[in-house]
């Protein structure tokens, strides 16, 4: 049994942080084998949770339960206070898959993949309108992949693909971003700029993050040396952000574009890297 309650909820007087994800006494068994037992934790608004665990620890299972792909054997999971089974506002959640989750020969352009971030319940039986296309080009602009729009997704490098999936996840301006080992198979330099982008979003935007990773270095570097809590082989690292929300009012796409331009100038990496 383990419980994490983010300290942030108490020491931040001006904002009341609600639970974004609540996991209560969740157990899961797969073919009579107990994968996890009695796991409880909660993710508050503007938390950054790093979920670390060895293969088979149940990271992916937990992620899949959170998004409703698996049902827990016992216990309950809530998203934004609503039980997963009844949750309807899926557009508030952005999802970045493992890089190797798709077939590289799949005939889809970058533009088509980014647009697909909009295809949820609300868009059923509806055609895409001009606003949707604007959202897609904004998201692509923010990630610096506008020029790649008509390329087949499989032709891109690992780092470029990751930006495409991040653009897809951001197209709805989600409040919660779920990342499943987003940097597997990407070179170190590209990984760093990817994390940098994520950190920037966490610090300056009203977003909450749940990231599954095996990259201890990055997790420790940003979220601290010790996990805030552990459940079996799952370890949860937490960092809460209440830095001045200087970008909260402004548009995510514009802020990220600015960041990217500064990064390409080579200055911002050092500045943010040291500020924590």
């Amino acid at each position: 049994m383990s419980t994490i309650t983010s300290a942030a909820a108490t020491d931040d007087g001006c904002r009341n942080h609600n639970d974004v994800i609540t996991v209560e006494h969740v157990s899961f068994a797969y073919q009579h084998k107990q994968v996890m037992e009695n796991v409880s934790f909660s993710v508050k608004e503007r938390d950054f949770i790093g979920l670390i665990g060895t293969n088979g620890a149940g990271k992916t299972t937990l992620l899949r339960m959170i998004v409703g792909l698996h049902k827990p054997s016992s216990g309950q999971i809530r998203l934004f206070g609503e039980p997963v089974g009844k949750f309807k506002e899926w557009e508030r959640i952005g999802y970045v898959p493992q890089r190797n989750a798709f077939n590289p020969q799949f005939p889809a352009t970058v533009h088509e993949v980014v647009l697909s971030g909009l295809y949820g319940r609300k868009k059923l039986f509806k055609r895409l309108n001009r606003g949707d296309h604007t959202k897609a080009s904004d998201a692509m602009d923010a990630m610096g992949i506008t020029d790649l729009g008509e390329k087949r997704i499989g032709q891109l490098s690992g780092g470029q693909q990751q930006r495409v999936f991040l653009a897809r996840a951001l197209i709805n301006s989600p409040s919660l971003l779920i990342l499943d080992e987003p940097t597997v198979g990407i070179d170190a330099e590209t990984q760093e700029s990817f994390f940098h982008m994520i950190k920037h979003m966490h610090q300056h935007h009203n977003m909450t993050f749940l990231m599954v990773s095996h990259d201890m270095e990055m997790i420790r570097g940003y979220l601290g040396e010790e996990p805030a809590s552990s459940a079996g082989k799952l370890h949860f690292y937490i960092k809460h952000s209440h830095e001045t929300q200087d970008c909260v009012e402004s548009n995510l796409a514009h802020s990220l574009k600015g960041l990217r331009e500064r990064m390409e100038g080579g200055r911002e990496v050092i500045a943010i890297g040291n500020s924590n």
Partner: protein
Amino acid sequence: MEILTSEFFQKALLGGLFIGITAPLVGLFLVLRRLSMIGDTLSHVAIAGVALGFLTGVYPLVAGIVFSIAASFAIEKLRKAYKTYAELSLAIIMSGGIALASILFTLGKSYSMNVNSYLFGSIYTLNSADLWIIGGVTGAVLIVIGTQVKELFLLTFDEEAAAVSGLPVRFYNVMISVLTALIISVSIKIVGALLVSALLTIPAACSLIIARSFKQSVIAVVVIGEFALLFGLIIAGVWNLAPGGTIVLLLIFILLLLLASRRGLRLFN
């Protein structure tokens, strides 16, 4: 040449053009989800249904549809039992279908059932009732894909992301299986159970060579499917060849041509 203006040939052509749109369209989604073999499996079960239809006096096409829909549900169930060996469920259901069909065919020998026409197709025997059923299935498939194409794209490309977007993933999976079962059952008379899966998979295989986007691949499979059905039937009619075999060989010929031209383009560049 006068065969081209005969009524049975024109009925065949109409049926062929219906199937030429729908089979490649649904096949594209199956191939992209790495379910190419599902067509073969369902068609073998559908033959058993057709045979039972003959034996019991139920309209064979309808019996085939019922059987292959049941098989598509059975595949889903078995796939859960053998999660990591999903193709095993296809192999089991396929041999089950053939086994049942062979027994029913033997039982029906005294009814002078023509086995060949179901194994290799008998497009020239399409009657008006067949055409209505084929047209109905085509309409249903076009409506479903026309209204759900973007959701199906997301589901096919990234099932997890589709679930996170709140799409009813299980419902869509069942829907695709049912559409596949419908198309296969109505295609059996046209190309035959042994060749049905070629209509599902080869146009998609062609589109993977030429299409740069999903939109292009949707257009490509329909154009290639219609082309192969139209000219395959004409060639078969004029030279008196087996229609199903001609259509499939023409599809393979198109595929080889595209492969060769792509290699040519590479050398050229």
